[in-house]
């Protein structure tokens, strides 16, 4: 028909043919998003690694979508042939978040999972790893969740030296300087 597809579109189509109901989006050059369900993630990763040549694991991160009550896990993988970053995104319920363990696909996922478990409290059932990664003996809520109040915790836990002047929340000032609005939902968690 004469239509030529870019390599990103080819990838998107490949993924869509392989997985039903998978939403893909070509964001920009060399970047493709795939919005998967929780169950699909591991098979997409495996498929991409084994069949499509996405042999390099770049990153696994977590986003706290407090307002919609969800965590979003983003797996970023990369192929040395096509040079495309494939973002596989999935959303978890914020109540008792849990995700399939995928560290058998790439061993380095282990480290990211440890971090996410500690910082966000996302559980990975069946996952073997050292119990503590960064926070030893942490008893509070996971600190990277947006509803965790850092200042209150600091005041409760640590000693402060008297007479320190520069101790204040600078977010308002930064927002003013750059001319941005602090969104309403964020104000709720503001220190002031």
């Amino acid at each position: 028909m004469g239509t030529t597809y870019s390599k990103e579109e080819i990838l998107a189509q490949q993924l869509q043919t392989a997985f039903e109901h998978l939403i893909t989006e070509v964001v920009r050059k060399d970047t493709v998003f795939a919005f998967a369900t929780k169950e699909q993630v591991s098979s997409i990763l495996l498929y991409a690694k084994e069949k499509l040549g996405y042999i390099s694991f770049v990153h696994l991160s977590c986003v706290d979508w407090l307002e919609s009550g969800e965590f979003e896990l983003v797996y970023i993988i990369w192929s040395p042939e096509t040079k495309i970053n494939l973002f596989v995104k999935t959303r978890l319920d914020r109540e008792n978040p849990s995700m399939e363990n995928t560290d058998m696909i790439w061993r380095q996922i282990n480290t990211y999972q440890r971090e996410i478990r500690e910082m966000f409290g996302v559980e990975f059932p069946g996952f073997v790893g050292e119990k503590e990664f960064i926070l030893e003996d942490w008893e509070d809520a996971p600190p990277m969740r947006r509803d965790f109040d850092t200042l209150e915790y600091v005041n409760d836990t640590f000693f402060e030296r008297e007479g320190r002047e520069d101790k204040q929340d600078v977010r308002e000032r930064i927002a003013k300087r750059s001319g941005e609005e602090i969104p309403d939902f964020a104000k709720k968690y503001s220190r002031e």
Partner: protein
Amino acid sequence: MYNDKNAQTIVDYIQNFTRKNSLFMLAYGTGCGAIELPATLTSRYDAERLGVRGAATPRQADLLLITGYLSTKTLKRVIRVYEQMQDPKYVIGFGSCTINGGMYWDSYNTIKLLDKYIPVDVYINGCMPRPESVISGFQELKRLIAAGKADGAKKYKENLEWYRENQKKVLKNWPLVEYNW
């Protein structure tokens, strides 16, 4: 030995002389301040001419140098290392973070005030202190030693319970086996 500052015996004098002129330093370099130490120790500033030299393990060391912020996780190690050192021993806090938390004043994971947890003989201010300041800190410590006033270890021994209480406030599940005290 330290109780009467004005009356040093000749033995004390010799001891203090050797101690101040031979400081085996254990640099606890977790913070960013560790980058200043190579400069301090090598050709440009040459701390070795003052008798300061690196020690590899706390057993051999006299001086614990804490270079910068301490997270709760590293605090545990620092206490451990400090307790493994043998008397007489001195601590230098290095940089603003050890003094008042510095830029990490509202971090959930770094301590703000080092001398609540272990006794600090000398603080060196700055973020970061340059090698000149570090050497000046060494000189201050030497002055204290010569005067018999660098008695942090003794304070720690005497007020151990107070220190422990503070330490345990941060380190929830007290992890240290009580080997040394």
